[in-house]
């Protein structure tokens, strides 16, 4: 395939990546945010494959493959095994901001990411970076935003993992020939993260009867007077 077609396809992968990030900001349902995360991970893998066939390095095939196996296939399965199904159908009625406001703020963040990358881009030689750097940075900021405004456990976990997606979306374009051991370890790391967060969510749900982690606010200096001493 010729390079310009691959570049166009890579730009589409970037667009899907960013759209999924917007979706995670806007959706109310836990299940939807899990699905959007999978779409985003697939876009990340697609971008890695496209860059690999463009001749950016063989290791990108491995990166894409590891992403598909860990994030697209294993992750949703693991999460659904560790967290009970009724958590996923939960809807968040009130977010910190309402959805139109959230989307506007998200747009501002993405514009900021594009502006920032413009100033950096001249320092980075390759053409692929025109897509991956701004999109990845935008994805990172949107994920951080998701993390701060969502109160349910599952969307927060998705935001957390999407942060890493954003970092990797930049990484596949700028860091070439990363050692395969590091990549395998990073894939393993995702699995451990998901299992541990899943188990913790389960423990919180069993002990406290809620997964609205954003509402757990007993640990504050001013609130500590109501708290009995920890055992």
């Amino acid at each position, binding site marked *: 395939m010729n390079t310009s077609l691959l570049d166009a396809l890579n730009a589409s992968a970037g667009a899907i990546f960013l759209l999924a990030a917007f979706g995670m900001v806007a959706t109310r349902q836990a299940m939807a945010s899990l699905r959007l995360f999978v779409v985003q991970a697939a876009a990340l893998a697609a971008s890695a494959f496209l860059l690999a066939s463009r001749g950016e390095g063989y290791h990108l095939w491995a990166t894409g493959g590891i992403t598909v196996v860990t994030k697209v296939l294993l992750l949703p399965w693991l999460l659904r095994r560790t967290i009970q199904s009724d958590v996923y159908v939960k809807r968040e009625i009130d977010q910190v901001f309402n959805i139109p406001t959230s989307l506007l703020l998200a747009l501002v963040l993405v514009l900021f990411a594009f502006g920032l990358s413009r100033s950096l881009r001249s320092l980075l030689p390759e053409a692929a970076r025109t897509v991956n750097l701004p999109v990845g940075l935008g994805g990172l900021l949107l994920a951080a935003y998701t993390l701060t405004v969502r109160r349910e456990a599952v969307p927060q976990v998705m935001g957390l993992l999407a942060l890493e997606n954003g970092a990797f979306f930049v990484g596949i374009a*700028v860091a070439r020939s990363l050692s395969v051991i590091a990549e395998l370890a990073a894939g393993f790391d995702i699995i451990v993260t998901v299992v541990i967060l899943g188990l*913790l969510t389960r423990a919180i749900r069993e002990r406290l009867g809620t997964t609205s982690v954003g509402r757990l*606010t007993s640990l504050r200096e001013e609130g500590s007077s109501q708290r009995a001493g920890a055992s």
Partner: protein
Amino acid sequence: MVGLPLLAAGISALVPRRVGSAVTCASSVAAAALALEIARIVVERGALIVLPGWIEVDGLGALIVVLVSLVGVTTSLFSWGYMAGHETGGSPAAYFANFNLFLFSMLAVPVLAEPNVTWIAVEHTTLLSVFLVAFEGTRAALEASWKYVVLTLSGAAVALLGFLLLYAVYQGAGGTGHYTWQALLRAAPRMDPSLALLAFLLVLVGLGTKVGLAPLHTWLPDAHSQAPSPVCALLSGVETSAVLYVILRLLPVLRAVPGSGADRWAEGAGLLSAVVAAFLLLQVSDYKRLFAYSTVEHMGIILFGAALATSATGFAASFQLVTHAFTKSFCFLAAGMVLTATGTTRVDHVRGLTRRSPIAAGALLLGALAIGGAPPFAVFLSELTLIRGGLAAGDYLSVAALVGVLGLAFIGILVPLHRMAFSGSPDEDETRHRSLPRTCVAAVALAAIPVLVLGVYVPPPVHALLARAAALVAR
């Protein structure tokens, strides 16, 4: 050496409580003995290369390895007594398995030679300690562990971007061959300054979250106060240092990049952290949180010292890493004894401690004096070295701020703890009074040795190791 805790984790997950305690203690003693041997070799030869390009230990790495493994000994001994009298929370097998896994991850950080793999090890120090923080299973403990995992992992993701950019900058500078901390340093003079600085700042913010640098410290007092006391001692005493180690590794690299200005950023971040923590200390009503804020302060001080980058402040920063690790872990073990004796962590609920439990009160006061920086304890000596180094470097304004911070922190720590020990009389109808397990007392006594000794006498081998580490920090 690194593998030992992993083995112990496997064993202690399977065996009953008493055996699990013994296995954990035995493996931590063995790991500490190996760590001291490694340090001896490193002092002699400068570095120990086990697996070229993957596992390499130099002076700074050896220092962290020694600290982690020695604090591992006292905390595992304390855990023995802690678990023996334990009825609530999770199972002892899970506790000791997690405890050993956590030790394993912390020992892995300083010996790994490739920066990207080091990042993964840092991520695992969080992942493998989450269930230790949540161990008590109370509402507060679960909330603290959620905050801990979400904030530090988001920090790690930001740091990941920094590490990947760093790798790109390294390749841009023509770096080839094995990607290690050494290779990074060699390629530094040819790096692009603005991209290198961006990568460093991403790492500073990302890992700074985990180190607990203000204003990213918000999770730290929660996690470091809700976890079981021996775990607090590990979290606060050495986990923060093991992560700060990564930033200390990067500083010399950035210093070698022409005109990056990273030292100024690190200096500012360190000073800000110390100042913020000192003021927050004054309004704390929980004695474990008090020690946690003091960790935020100390991390800031160490970073500040390392960023000044003279040989004197580099030495002071390394020394402060040592004194902080020993003293802070001692403080949390002492706090654990007080908690066992009184059943509360609230400062205003504990009165007349000297009469109720003289040992706990004595340990708490000793810890408070030592961590507050009173002479003749080790922290006083390391902070004095830093102040003198800062003055010699001509940074008068920052040093003045630092002196203010130290005074404020001293008052903030000592006043409430003094009140707990001496004022009033103990509540007679307090039912949760428990006697202290012998292993706990032994662990605290053992932990007190370096706190008392290092303030008046630094043995030559320790000095040699510190000099090795300082040369790497202030390069």
